[in-house]
């Protein structure tokens, strides 16, 4: 079997803030009635995470659930676990109206890490990145410069960004430019 590689194939940029490709990551889109017990069970059983509140995610380390819209979740897990997880979720949901899709290969995941991480994101997206409105655990679907992107706050100095695979180079490029040495909003 061929080996899966991400579009950015491990690229890394060291600036005032670090930008790095996280490689292949399992991502499953689950749509349905989020108040249904079967939908909740399908998402929580394969991710080992709690259901997120609206606008939040419960991604601890690199696995969990993100709230995408009132009828959509994104289940994040190791790349190799996707097929098994989809089969298991399909069984749990067999009598429930739902949609399940493996979107792992349609996406890239990029980590932005450093003290000025909020400023890097704020330069590129209209999201309010102040700590009072974007705390650790917040999930935001928005745009970055000219393309759709989503990101969540992993810890106080780390934000994980997901975008479509086809625009990976573009997103990596704009993140690197915003994170470059000398581009800090508040220079040392």
């Amino acid at each position, binding site marked *: 079997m061929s080996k899966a590689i991400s579009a950015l194939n491990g690229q890394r940029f060291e600036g005032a803030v670090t930008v790095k490709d996280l490689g292949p990551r399992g991502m499953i889109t689950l749509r349905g009635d989020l108040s249904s017990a079967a939908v909740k069970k399908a998402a929580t059983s394969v991710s080992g995470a709690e259901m997120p509140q*609206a*606008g939040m995610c419960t991604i601890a380390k690199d696995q969990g659930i993100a709230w*995408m*819209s*009132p009828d*959509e979740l994104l289940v994040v897990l190791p790349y190799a676990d996707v097929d098994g997880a989809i089969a298991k979720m399909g069984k749990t949901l067999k009598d429930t109206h739902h949609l399940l899709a493996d979107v792992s290969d349609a996406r890239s995941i990029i980590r932005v890490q450093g003290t000025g991480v909020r400023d890097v994101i704020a330069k590129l997206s*209209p999201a*309010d990145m102040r700590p009072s409105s974007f705390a650790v655990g917040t999930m*935001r*679907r*928005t*745009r970055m410069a000219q393309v*759709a992107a989503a990101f969540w706050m992993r810890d106080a100095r780390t934000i994980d960004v997901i975008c479509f695979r086809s625009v990976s180079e573009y997103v990596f490029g704009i993140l690197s430019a915003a994170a470059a040495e000398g581009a800090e909003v508040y220079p040392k």
Partner: protein
Amino acid sequence: MLILTCPYCSVAADETELSAGGEAHVKRETVGADDAAFEQYLFQRENPKGIHFERWRHAAGCGKWFHAARCTNTLEVFGTYSAQTLEPPKNITDAISAARPGWTWRNFS
């Protein structure tokens, strides 16, 4: 910059994250309607300087369509509400009445 709060995901989204969907509450005409009704449905749109009702989509966000009531003159937003309705809810019309007593827009007031 116009900022609308999406009623589905509660994000205060600026217009770069939204796409405009034209006038709200347009009644679709169908088989049996006369020419005048079809002309109204297809072509006749309000273009007010003041209170307006529009459809918007949270395109770069949760992806949902919603309704917004705002003033095109001042960019004041009176509220946003569900797409699953044929008319603005009372809390929206009340908010407009408080700011602009005596307002009308098509059949609403």
